[in-house]
């Protein structure tokens, strides 16, 4: 199985820019998410099981690293997550960096806990940790079901 995940990761490294999104993805950045205080951000990252802060939206990422995060979640069939576009809100852009003490965007939160940026999510994807972490949240990774399809390609 780790071999299959490895191949999926290799496919991912071609960095295709997909455009198919589940109906659950909420581009929450414009309007509602405003404000950058630690208290507000704490509420924001804990409101949903999977929360990402991106440059751009899941439909139209404005940065290759943000796109990679979106693609990884898509590979795992995670469609119900909250995405905030920091380019829409300078306060949010700085605030989330201060909140997590992390200098770059994208940022990924699972169950209210900061897990890292693109590099770490990719690493978790490649080594199988992401499947396990999603399971803890009650989310079954689509890669578990699609392993055979991946193998046959």
């Amino acid at each position, binding site marked *: 199985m780790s071999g299959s995940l490895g191949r999926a990761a290799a496919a991912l*490294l071609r*960095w295709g*820019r997909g455009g198919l999104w589940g109906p659950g993805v909420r581009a929450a950045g414009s309007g509602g998410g405003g404000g950058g205080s630690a208290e507000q951000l704490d509420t924001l990252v804990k409101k949903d099981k999977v929360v990402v802060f991106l*440059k*751009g939206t899941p439909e*139209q*990422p*404005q*940065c*290759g*690293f*943000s*796109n*990679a995060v979106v693609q990884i979640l898509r590979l795992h069939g995670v469609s119900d997550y909250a995405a905030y576009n920091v*380019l829409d809100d300078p306060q949010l852009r700085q605030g989330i960096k201060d909140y997590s*003490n*992390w*200098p*770059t965007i994208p940022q990924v939160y699972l169950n209210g806990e*900061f*897990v*890292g*940026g*693109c*590099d*770490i999510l990719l*690493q*978790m994807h490649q080594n199988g940790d992401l499947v396990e972490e999603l399971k803890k949240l009650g989310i079954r990774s689509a890669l578990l079901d699609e392993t055979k399809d991946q193998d046959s390609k």
Partner: protein
Amino acid sequence: MLSGQLVRRLFSMASRVCLARGSPGSGTIGPVEATIRTKLEQALNPEVLELRNESGGHAVPAGSETHFRVAVVSSRFEGLSPLQRHRLVHAALAEELAGPVHALAIQARTPAQWRENPQLDVSPPCLGGSKKTRGTP
């Protein structure tokens, strides 16, 4: 399969020799790149330190030093989570990250992990979301 791995490994070793001598193929090393290298060497005493200026792939002027990818291979990372490892790198480069460096992709490995796959990865292509191009798709 095996030979493929060998080739990759040899290639990676060759590129490391090049890096040790200077910048491979891309001309001069800029001041920010030099500082990043020095600070990481001082902070983490890396066994291998590979650094690539990826700014050329982004919507910034030629010769910019804004986007970097680094592989830091250090025994200091033993027993640390990926998050903790990245935070060590961020701490060493706090000044650069608060200033000129806009993006930093990090591969933080222990020596044993590096030997399994000793290569500096390739970053995803830019999608044009810098401050200047903001709003244009």
